[in-house]
């Protein structure tokens, strides 16, 4: 923990992410109080239904329908971050459960479970996800969102399972586990209380790096029109709208794009910092 705080870049990353997250959570409410704009507020006056460049009224400009870009970017932030975090949690839960059971059980069960993982690994996931999203759920925005959680969570649990299994196997034969078994602690308790907390290190590092990766995937899918649907917005879908008019109204793409890049940048630095801090071999002078 000490080491992490000493890593100035990681701290910077945490600060940035906190600011953005905070803005995403309470920003839209504040903006609404101040100006009455929401992400889907289309001005009644037809003259205002077009894209304006950034100004005092609209710090990030407006989109083609006259909607305030700042509000949309903040909403996009909410959705993108939410997708990233929830999907990662989904994959964490599934992966940890799978990997811990396989690693602890050993033998045939372990073989079987990891065989399944190997087979699933060979599937071109993104293709299946594209098919899934294109064919189902484009009917309601919420439905699409739930589908996204599941699909994206399913993409990364495999690696998580492998990591957890590796950790469990190396911990399994260490003394404190043998002691627990010798005193008759039931297996599931051993897994939950002893093994899981000790595998936390690499798992946390992986999860922290997974969030930006999943956010990127969601953004890709939304960019292709398969992810988040209107009237909701995520940074990816905003970019997809923005790219249409890149020549004339570049701010429609630049603001969501830069905000997203900044967020991912910071998240990656945090993940890196965590990994360095937990790595026993690194000795800085």
């Amino acid at each position: 923990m000490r080491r992490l705080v000493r890593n100035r870049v990681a701290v910077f990353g945490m600060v940035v992410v906190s600011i953005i997250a905070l803005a995403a959570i309470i920003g839209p409410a504040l903006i609404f109080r101040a100006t009455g704009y929401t992400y889907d507020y289309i001005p009644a006056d037809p003259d205002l239904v077009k894209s304006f460049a950034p100004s005092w009224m609209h710090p990030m400009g407006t989109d083609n329908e006259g909607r305030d870009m700042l509000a949309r970017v903040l909403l996009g932030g909410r959705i993108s971050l939410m997708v990233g975090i929830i999907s990662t949690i989904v994959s964490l839960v599934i992966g940890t459960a799978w990997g811990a059971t396989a690693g602890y059980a050993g033998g045939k069960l372990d073989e079987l479970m990891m065989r399944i993982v190997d087979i699933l690994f060979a599937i071109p996931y993104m293709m299946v996800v594209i098919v899934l999203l294109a064919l189902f759920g484009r009917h309601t925005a919420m439905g699409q969102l739930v589908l996204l959680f599941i699909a994206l969570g399913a993409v990364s649990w495999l690696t998580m399972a492998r990591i957890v299994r590796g950790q469990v196997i190396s911990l399994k034969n260490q003394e404190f586990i043998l002691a627990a078994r010798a005193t008759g602690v039931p297996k599931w308790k051993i897994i939950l209380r002893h093994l899981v907390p000790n595998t936390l290190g690499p798992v946390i590092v992986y999860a922290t790096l997974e969030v930006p990766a999943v956010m990127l995937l969601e953004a890709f899918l939304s960019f292709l029109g398969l992810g988040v649907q209107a009237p909701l917005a995520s940074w990816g879908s905003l970019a997809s709208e923005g790219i249409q008019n890149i020549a004339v109204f570049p701010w429609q793409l630049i603001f969501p794009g830069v905000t997203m890049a900044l967020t991912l940048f910071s998240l990656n630095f945090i993940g890196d910092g965590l990994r360095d801090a937990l790595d026993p071999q690194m000795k800085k002078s």
Partner: protein
Amino acid sequence: MERRCAGAQTLMLRFVIRRLLSTIPMVLVVVSLTWGLIRLAPGSFYTGEKALPPAIEKNLRAKYGLDKPWYVQYAKMISNTARLDFGSSLKYEGQSVNTILMRAFPVSAMVGLLAYALSLLVGITSGLFAAVRHNSKWDYSSMTLSMLGISVPTFVLGPILVLFFSLSLYWFPPARWDGIATRSAVLPVLTLSVIYMAYIARLTRSGMLEVLRSDYIRTARAKGLSETAIVLKHAFRGGIIPVVSLTGPALAGLITGTVVVERIFVLPGLGTYFLNANLNRDEPLILGIVAFISITILVCNLLVDVAYAFIDPRIRY
């Protein structure tokens, strides 16, 4: 000595054959999964805004064999797939799926391969320099740059490059495809390669740093070898292994990346066709592309595993 090499070679051959054979059931599994998804999805490919009169619908279903029980249709689909016969596209009247594949694949493949080759070149070189000049300005700046490369999404980078190079400097066309050896290929390849350049640079750097800490490098130094000889002859082989490991997952990523890049630059590649096929529920085309890509990925993973055996002599299959 020759006896030993021949033995190893037969083992390798058997391994390759075993893997190739296991590719077939894998592909069939993926195709079945996709088929299942398509059939489970609500609606069908011919539904439009208004419902069709029942008689016409009945004719359509008969024409496409949709009136037979599902397991019959499934069996037919599997046997067709096994023979690599995917029929004709539903949307692009009269064009066989295979023709479309043959036309679109080279576009995507060349952009992808070129992008990956470029990223290997730049990534490995800068990773090597960063490792050798550890903790120097070069190291920090190239690592920060690579962090940027990972964080800026492709669909942000692409348009920015277009804004700058196409619409301001007029060096490259913004959204056109003339062929791989033309100027229109530069921006797509560049856009796609940046993220991999970044990953490869970081992996090379960390792989090399790890290796440079090992005992056998200390032995090499104790023998009086120069730093260059040590880095290039002794450390490189071990240090490059993480990059080889990356290639497998990178392929999967290249696919999504290509889809996005093709959208931005309007390239007539597999990605575009796949996306449209999904939106149009063009079942034969969807299945054809899925099968094709699966085979490609599995073969490439096999090549990567074979490459491992060449790099690390301890590996024996």
